[in-house]
């Protein structure tokens, strides 16, 4: 996990610092004059070799210092306003995955081969195929502009209520994926010997499904949803842009367009960290859910 963290952050660090010109954003649209450029480079430590810059940066990060954006704002300040918004958005998305995705997966898994299964399965393919930004724009057009059910763009408070539709858009692809995964898992376990045993024990159908079938089938689904947390937060760029949500994706997008190195590297570092921590938690959760792993 630590090598992955170092590798991923270094990769981003290199991309931003080597591919781009870290001080280009400072002088506005004009080219910086060489003297100012040199001065600025020295000020930000950019005259040193990249590996040294990276080490200094990571050293600072571990003391909670993510540096300062070129406009003088502390990156941590940006984070403290942006992350709560994106976390709320992610929570909404995860709730959709759990409630809709798992329910649809259970229904289709139990009714495998029936019309409802085929229909939902086809729908999931459609949802997966339509790019998120298209889904988002269409929902915004329909619900926000044509029917007026929601405000087309989210206010700066970004309350849970406002985030319902954006959360659904963000969740859409994962939701389809959760449905398919649950369906496969349910359909596979439904024919398993222990479910047959549960039926032979004379347990009511509900109990067979919930306690025996679901408990086993949801192990891969729960772990998927867990790992998806990181992916959702990193993938929120598109959704946040469509609905004008001032979260992590918005800050990143602005940072990249304005070549604001500190903001970009800082946010990406935290996102990678979230992704890795989520993965670690999922591994632990997996052991809790599956005793075969726990006592292996």
């Amino acid at each position: 996990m630590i090598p992955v963290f170092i590798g991923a952050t270094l990769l981003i660090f290199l991309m931003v610092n080597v591919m781009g010109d870290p001080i280009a954003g400072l002088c506005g649209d004009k080219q910086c004059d060489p003297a100012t450029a040199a001065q600025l480079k020295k000020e930000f430590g950019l005259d040193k070799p990249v590996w040294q810059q990276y080490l200094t940066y990571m050293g600072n990060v571990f003391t909670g210092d993510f540096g300062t954006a070129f406009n003088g704002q502390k990156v941590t300040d940006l984070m403290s306003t942006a992350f709560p918004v994106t976390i709320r958005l992610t929570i909404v998305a995860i709730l959709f995955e759990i409630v809709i995705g798992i329910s649809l997966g259970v229904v289709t898994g139990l009714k495998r081969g029936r019309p409802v299964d085929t229909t939902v399965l086809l729908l999931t393919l459609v949802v997966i195929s339509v790019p998120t930004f298209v889904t988002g724009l269409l929902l915004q057009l329909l619900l926000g502009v044509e029917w007026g059910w929601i405000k087309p763009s989210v206010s700066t408070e970004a309350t849970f209520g406002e985030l319902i539709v954006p959360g659904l858009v963000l969740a859409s692809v994962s939701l389809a994926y959760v449905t398919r995964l649950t369906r496969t898992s349910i359909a596979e376990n439904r024919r398993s010997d222990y479910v047959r045993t549960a039926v032979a024990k004379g347990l009511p159908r509900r109990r067979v499904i919930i306690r025996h079938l679901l408990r086993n089938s949801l192990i891969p689904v729960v772990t998927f949803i867990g790992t998806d947390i990181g992916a959702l937060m990193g993938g929120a760029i598109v959704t946040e842009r469509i609905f004008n949500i001032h979260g992590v994706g918005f800050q990143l997008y602005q940072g990249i367009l304005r070549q604001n190195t500190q903001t970009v590297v800082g946010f990406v570092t935290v996102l990678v960290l979230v992704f890795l921590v989520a993965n670690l938690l999922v591994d632990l959760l997996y052991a809790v859910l599956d005793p075969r792993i726990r006592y292996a």
Partner: protein
Amino acid sequence: MPEQPNDPELAIAGTGMGGPMDLATSEAATLDKTPGPDGGGPQDRPRSLWSDAWRDLRRNPVFIISALVILFLVVISIWPSLIASGNPLKCNLSKAQEGSQPGHPFGYDGQGCDVYTRTVYGARTSVTVGVLATLGVSLLGSVLGGLAGFFSGVWDSVLSRITDIFFAIPVVLGGLVLLSVVTSNTVWPVIGFMVLLGWPQISRIARGSVITAKQNDYVQAARALGASNSRLLLRHIAPNAVAPVIVVATIALGTYISLEATLSYLGVGLKPPTVSWGIDISSASTYVRNAPHALLWPSGALAITVLAFIMLGDAVRDALDPKLR
């Protein structure tokens, strides 16, 4: 071997590619791990596997429809003038945002360009990017992953670490960072980026299926009979390991098209004057209240194209893996 800790479903989930990329990997993982009807892997009987699959596919309406759609897309990508006589770059500002009218069934966009013509020409860009990116990713990924799976050892460990690192970076984010500094307005930077970030996905699949194929008895037998490494790889392992890669590559092709449009929508993918659905959708979204048609047509075309490739891959996977039916 630095394995993912637990079951394959989880390993897929850890891709972090976010979005559609995950589907392809997961589907292939099921393909990879599910034994065929005879208890062996689906690679056990290559010839009858493929001919069985083909027999199933010919009877599958989903396959036929998606194959026809793809055929149509390929044809109009090569000869767009077959169905669109206009020039996608010839626009008439005075007609901006006008709706459907005779000769211009899809109306005009914000610059007064004919939406129909641009939608038709957009197919060429999407198909080109999708096909080239998939070819690049498949080649690089299969070679790296296949060799890692075959030789194991240090090379395999290093490769697995590298793929882990790539999976930790969200794709769209990586695209934004890398492509935002590119000024070229050709398709090559976008394709290059996709190959750079996409290969670990295929390499993981290729590695897995090579390891499965390697353990087959007849491969062990060939090895015992003194077959050379290159002969083993090319004659015995590759033909049996290729099925999951093909399935993932087909589905991935759809997702690359979708990714290109997403990047173009974010303003870092393709740039005008290239005709791309992503660019058109992006600009149409700014005046969607006045001219929703300029948003809907390219969106629809994009959705159908991606859907066709994903459904094709899905159908092929089902045909190759009868147990999942």
